């Protein structure tokens, strides 16, 4: 039905009493996400009802530590809204407490901190999405993050993206065409992210209910090239792609910490070329993402079952 999050996901919000934490907790609860706990050190014991401006439908118990939240509320996912200078500590606290999925919204975490966090999470077997990302959503079931819920619609297209609003754009185009999304993951715009395109593709591979995957990349790094290599070798589901930043000048950081062409590497044209060679349907204009998804799905048939059957038939011939 989806990957990583669904109606059984029980979420703890780290930094729940801050202004961002409060607003987005309200939004997540309204969407139907099971927000079962919050963590703000020193405010343990509080039944938080939100602020005057952003009141919650129901109060959320606040704990001093993530470990307490896990013990008392059985949380299995965390979302982090704490400021950049404290974020790496918050991530490691969640991992140490045994939370299997951490979604880090915070932007601006120093790379030196993230190098350590990444190694620690890898060692711990914890999956993290982000940092500097909009989060993850399985439409109709669970929204963890800051994306507007209403643009999504339950369906069979998976989305993986390094961007925020550009992802909303793609989601909206797909929804407007009467299709929907299985799960959308904003993997984040930083040079070091917990879940890369390849990691997310591996998860979609085993999701029987995703018929197509959209990859929205941008300049900088080689994550799109790695994804292309994986798609070519091991991924059977059709992939549609867009790379932002064809017109971006080299050596300049385009808003996202990771969006930079350095030493002539990480250009959009290079990524597009490699992705096309791997059989990914790369669109030139972001206006055509939805339409292309629809066309590709129309060509390949709507369910993976049919596609698999066709493939096996063609092998026999």
């Amino acid at each position, binding site marked *: 039905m989806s990957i990583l999050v669904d109606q059984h996901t029980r979420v703890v919000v780290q930094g729940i009493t801050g202004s961002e934490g409060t607003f987005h907790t309200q939004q997540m609860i309204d969407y139907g996400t099971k927000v079962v706990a919050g963590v703000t050190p020193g405010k343990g014991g509080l039944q938080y009802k939100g602020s005057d401006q952003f009141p919650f439908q129901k109060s959320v118990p606040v704990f001093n530590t993530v470990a307490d939240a896990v013990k008392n509320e059985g949380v299995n996912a965390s979302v982090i809204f704490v400021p950049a200078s404290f974020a790496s500590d918050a991530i490691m606290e969640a991992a140490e407490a045994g939370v299997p999925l951490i979604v880090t919204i915070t932007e601006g975490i120093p*790379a030196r901190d993230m190098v350590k966090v990444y190694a620690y999470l890898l060692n711990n077997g914890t999956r993290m999405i982000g940092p500097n990302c909009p989060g993850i959503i399985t439409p109709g079931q669970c929204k963890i993050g800051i994306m507007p819920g209403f643009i999504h619609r339950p369906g069979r297209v998976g989305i993986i993206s390094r961007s925020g609003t550009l992802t909303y*754009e793609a989601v909206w185009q797909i929804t407007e065409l009467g299709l929907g999304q299985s799960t959308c993951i904003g993997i984040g715009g930083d040079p070091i992210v917990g879940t890369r395109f390849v990691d997310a593709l591996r998860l979609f591979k085993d999701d029987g209910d995703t018929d197509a995957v959209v990859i929205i990349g941008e300049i900088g790094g080689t994550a799109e090239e790695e994804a292309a290599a994986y798609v070519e070798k091991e991924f059977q589901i059709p992939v549609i792609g867009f790379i932002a930043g064809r017109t971006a000048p080299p050596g300049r950081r385009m808003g996202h910490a990771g969006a930079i062409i350095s030493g002539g590497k990480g250009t959009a044209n290079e990524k597009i070329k490699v992705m096309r060679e791997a059989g990914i349907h790369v669109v030139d204009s972001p206006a055509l993402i939805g339409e292309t998804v629809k066309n590709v799905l129309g060509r390949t048939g709507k369910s993976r079952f049919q596609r698999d059957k066709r493939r096996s038939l063609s092998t026999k011939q």
Partner: protein
Amino acid sequence: MKIHEYQAKKILKQFGVAVPNGGVAFSDDEAVKTAEGIGGSTWVVKAQIHAGGRGKGGGVKIAKNFDEVRQIASQMLGMKLVTHQTGPDGKIVKRVLIEQGISIARELYIGITLDRSRSQNVVMASTEGGVEIEKVAAATPEKILKEYVNPMIGFREFQARKLAFGLCMSGDAFKNGVKFLMALYKTYEETDASLAEINPLVVTADGQVLALDAKMNFDDNALFRHPDILAMRDLDEEEPLEIEASKYNLSYIKLDGNVGCMVNGAGLAMATMDIIKLAGGEPANFLDVGGGASVETVSNGFKIILSDSKVKAILINIFGGIVRCDRVANGVVEAVKKVRVTVPVVVRLEGTNAKEAREILANSGLNFSVVTSLQDATEKVTQAIKN
């Protein structure tokens, strides 16, 4: 953030990395005084700009006496230095570095940066110093030695030894090379650098190992922990409009095109630039106004975009998620009334309350081209620049 060579060398010296004796000068008098302080009989005068390829552009010269130091310094200060990295406009030289002349036995390369595909730092070394390392990497990748740094244990001495042996160092040079590598990594780590590049690293006939050139970039996200490094920022090296934009907390990058754009979100902003290009225009800028897009941010955005006289049209592209489009529309209307906007404005608002937003724009009495889809936006921009 980028800094000058002389600033990088100052930081490196503090961490025990061997650098030639030298000092910065802002005038020819200072240049001579600095040379006198260094002593010796040969000096190198190096133009300080944030771009590579200075040697080929005439930004690095050798002086054999104090008169030559004065002559070269006065010639360099104020000159327009054009290199392959500055673009055709070049950069005005406002500071020079005066250094002792070094007798070079070998020129090598060392660079430390983040390897994004491994999420680890990598220390690279090559015997091919003094040339563009990208060319070495493309033509003869086997000539670049790499040691990845496990963040759990840090950069270890055995790794420094491996690299030093790989660089065919021996005797005193080997000992000094290992010491150099360890100190350079410590500098990189403790200053939150995103790049520490020594090209060339030189070995002298008597086994000294020195950073003849030094380039350091720093992680903008970590500057809050390094006020001393932040103080090294040289505003002369930055685009005036970008400095202006940063005062308003706008993420703006100036480009050379004719269509300005204002977008919420970095990815969508890049995609919007690409759309302008597909529409037959050239983007004049990157501008992410962030999630809020209030009257104030939009007004400031207009001011910045319109300060660029090449701009012939403006495309506003806002995807309203959490931020409501009707609010953005009100902001745009007020901003246009406040700032005299003289070029056609194409507005594309989609998402939350987009319909109300379009009505606000249509009823404002102002001359907007209001569009719904990105495809329509492309067409309207094409029309706008044709007229």
